[in-house]
């Protein structure tokens, strides 16, 4: 009887819509803000293509690609955490969120290395328009990563006690939605700053 109820509950969970309406709205507003930043960047680039291309050479494609793979892997781990939360597997939720947190920290560490390298070579936001955008866009994105790592770590700490609760499942879906958004943003930031137009 209990097993049948559990199965029905799982079927119900898999049929309902993922995440909260509020989170879908919040993420979309954030997406539009970044779209406007990208439009401004490309608009400014129109008159300074040579300067932008010459500046891009100073960015490390290897570090950018490493951060891309780190975020993609952490996104996958969060997907597995959401699936585990739906299956009421507390241990798996904790494990997958833990790996996602570590990968998020690795992204931050990688970014700190990159920023330090730039400053040591005399490159700052005041160097030129391209680097103003570079530091602004990547720093705002980095703050999203730091916030996401905080959310992931918080829900990991609650996983063992709350995984059976429907509200916890919804919250893990919400933090997953935010984390995937951070991932998608980075895919375009990597293309925008590091790759497109690189000589």
């Amino acid at each position, binding site marked *: 009887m209990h097993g049948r109820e559990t199965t029905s509950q799982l079927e119900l969970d898999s049929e309902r819509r993922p995440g909260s309406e509020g989170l879908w709205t919040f993420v*979309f507003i954030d997406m539009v803000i970044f779209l406007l930043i*990208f439009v401004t960047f490309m608009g400014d680039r129109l008159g300074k*293509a040579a300067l932008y291309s010459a500046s891009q050479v100073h960015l490390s494609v290897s570090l950018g690609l490493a951060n891309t793979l780190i975020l993609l892997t952490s*996104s*996958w781990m969060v*997907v597995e955490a959401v699936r585990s939360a739906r299956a009421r597997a507390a241990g798996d939720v904790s494990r997958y969120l833990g790996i996602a947190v570590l990968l998020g920290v690795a992204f931050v560490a990688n970014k700190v290395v990159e920023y330090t390298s730039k400053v040591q070579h005399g490159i700052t936001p005041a160097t030129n328009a391209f680097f103003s955008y570079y530091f602004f866009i990547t720093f705002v994105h980095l703050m999203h990563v730091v916030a996401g790592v905080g959310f992931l770590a918080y829900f990991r700490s609650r996983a063992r006690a709350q995984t059976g609760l429907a509200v916890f499942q919804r919250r893990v879906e919400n933090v997953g939605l935010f984390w995937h*958004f951070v*991932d*998608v943003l980075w895919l375009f930031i990597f293309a925008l700053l590091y790759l497109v137009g690189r000589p």
Partner: protein
Amino acid sequence: MIRRFWSAPAAVWLILCALSVMAVVQLEEGSSRRTASLLVVLLAAIKARLIIRHYMEADRARPVWRILYNAWNFAVAATLGIGYWMSIR
């Protein structure tokens, strides 16, 4: 069977990583910088679409979110692609 594999999170992750590496390699090795840059934008849009559909599960959310998130993806890709094209003309 193929559909299930395509939808599995691990398979999607593998495809996303492969497309990311491919974007960098074709930019480094490709003969035409213009084509390579536009291909980078196309690959980024494909990856974003995969994440929005399979990881965010936008197809299971209210239809308005699926439409808006996919429209955002298209708008960003168009901004990068058209912006770059105009800057090199």
